[in-house]
């Protein structure tokens, strides 16, 4: 197994607020290899967006971070801001949920793309628009030349997202962080965008961190998946394995709660209790309060990683 491009070790993130400390990440461990798409899945409040943002250092001023985020061996958390800025966009890029909000409405597609291209000095001066057209073609947009003159509001949601992907890829990053890239798109368009990301991943040997709450997206677009709960990764493995034979009680409960074909009208299995709040300090396993199998040891000590290829953090398994 080669060295992963991105390695996150014991990432902890909290916010200092007027009401006290709010813990968003309680120790995230994650690795993403080149050319592999890793899904980061969890429900709202689990910290998946914050994990993505932490890699790029896009955190509010009241954030307190600890742990290590290694990009090819370099600890991004320890870098001075200027160095981090160099990495943003050129080695690590990010795309977001709402493309309409991420694109500037008063500039044309061409102008926005050129600005990014120019900033990263990816093309010869004066030839930014050519490069821009090239990128638009790569994301499978038809008639790239004409698109350069269009404004974001004139494009459909799917097209806007493709433009955002083009912008993200302009400096040929090695890692792409996609935060819910298809959530605000229609179902048919979602499939197209996910297929596009897959194609780009293979062609450019991109490492992709795909953040989502949607299991279908995970199934369709990732090779590995990490399940996040209350700011900790509880399970990580090959996608078909984790979804087919989930090991962690939370993963099992999550998958069991999904409505499935053929089981019409039968009660779905909900998970009792609620997600721990940010101001709660948890001593043991983050899921202990809602776990059907919780033992005393679960409440007192955070579980260690068990398993190599398909790892799980749970006291039910030997570590």
């Amino acid at each position, binding site marked *: 197994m080669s060295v992963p491009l991105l390695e996150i070790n014991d990432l902890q993130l909290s*916010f*200092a*607020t*007027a*009401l006290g400390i*709010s813990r*968003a990440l309680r120790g995230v461990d994650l690795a993403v290899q080149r050319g592999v798409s890793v899904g980061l899945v969890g429900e*709202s*409040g689990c910290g998946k*967006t*914050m994990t993505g943002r932490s890699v790029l250092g896009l955190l*509010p001023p*009241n*954030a307190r971070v600890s742990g290590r985020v290694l990009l090819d061996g370099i600890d991004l958390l320890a870098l001075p801001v200027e160095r981090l800025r160099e990495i943003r966009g050129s080695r690590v890029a990010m795309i977001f949920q709402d493309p309409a909000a991420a694109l500037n409405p008063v500039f044309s597609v061409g102008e926005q793309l050129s600005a990014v291209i120019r900033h990263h000095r990816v093309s010869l001066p004066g030839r930014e628009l050519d490069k821009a057209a090239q990128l638009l073609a790569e994301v499978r947009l038809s008639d790239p030349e004409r698109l350069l003159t269009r404004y974001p509001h004139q494009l459909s949601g799917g097209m806007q997202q493709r433009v955002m992907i083009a912008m993200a890829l302009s400096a040929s990053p090695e890692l792409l962080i996609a935060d819910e890239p298809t959530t605000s798109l229609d179902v048919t368009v979602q499939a197209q965008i996910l297929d596009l990301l897959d194609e780009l991943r293979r062609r450019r040997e991109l490492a992709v961190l795909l953040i989502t709450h949607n299991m279908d997206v995970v199934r369709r677009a990732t090779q590995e998946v990490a399940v996040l709960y209350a700011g900790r990764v509880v399970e990580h493995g090959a996608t078909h394995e984790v979804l087919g034979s989930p090991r962690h009680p939370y993963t099992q409960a999550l998958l069991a709660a999904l409505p499935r074909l053929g089981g019409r009208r039968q009660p779905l299995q909900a998970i009792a209790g609620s997600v721990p709040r*940010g101001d709660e300090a948890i001593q043991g396993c983050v899921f202990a309060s809602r776990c059907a199998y919780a033992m005393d040891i679960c409440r007192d000590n955070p579980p260690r990683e068990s398993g190599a290829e398909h790892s799980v953090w749970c006291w039910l398994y030997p570590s």
Partner: protein
Amino acid sequence: MISLVAIALIVLAAVFAPWLTPHEGAGGTGTPDLATAFGAPSLEHPFGTDDLGRDVFARVLFGARPSLVLGAVVVTLGMVIGTGLGAVAGFAGGWIDEIIMRFTDIILSFPALLLAILLAATLRPSLESAIVAISVTWWPWYTRLVRAQAVSIRERHYVLAARSLGASPLWVLWHHVLPNVLGPVRVQAALDLGAAILVGAALSFLGLGSQPPSPDWGRMVSDGRQYVLGGYWWLTVFPGAAIYVTALTFSFLGDGVQKASDPRARGMSS
């Protein structure tokens, strides 16, 4: 926080003025005593005496009243009228909106101070006319502010939900639109108190507010002007300082209210 204390002090001073000074005279106008005219600040008369021998400190204390009253009434009237019109305009839309907003625009097209002066001048000069005149120029700002809010609230799902329950437009306006536009209105009102006091002082400086012998800061500044070159600075400076300090503390209050209502103060991210 400090501003709240300062304002409390000012208000208390205004209310308890009669007990704070022995030189009250008739209703705070001070007792004319030509023998002591133009007395410099001293223990007996902390702010000195004016051209008619009246104690300046007493007049400044009592002068707080018309200023505070004016500020409060103007802002309240402006707020109530402006908010009401703005909410109806924004929520109803259509020609109601057009009529109200055009009318609002007409008033806004005049420079506010000028309009207030014109209006006050056509009425018999008094505190009441000043209040009326300034209120007329004040409400349009609220109408604009509230209308924009109302338009966006109109589309919110909780308004839709209320309509789907069969609520009449009046019900929706009163129960759902108005309470939710009040946020920015409160902030604006807090900020406006200081401004209103300043405008009131400006009008009374020009002689369009309270009439002599009633004590009024703006008027006192104006009356004392002619004596400054003669070296009798206290007739103007103390009332002027009162205006300044009062407007400033209200301004801080407004700032504080604005910061407190800023949702960013809550700080938690998801």
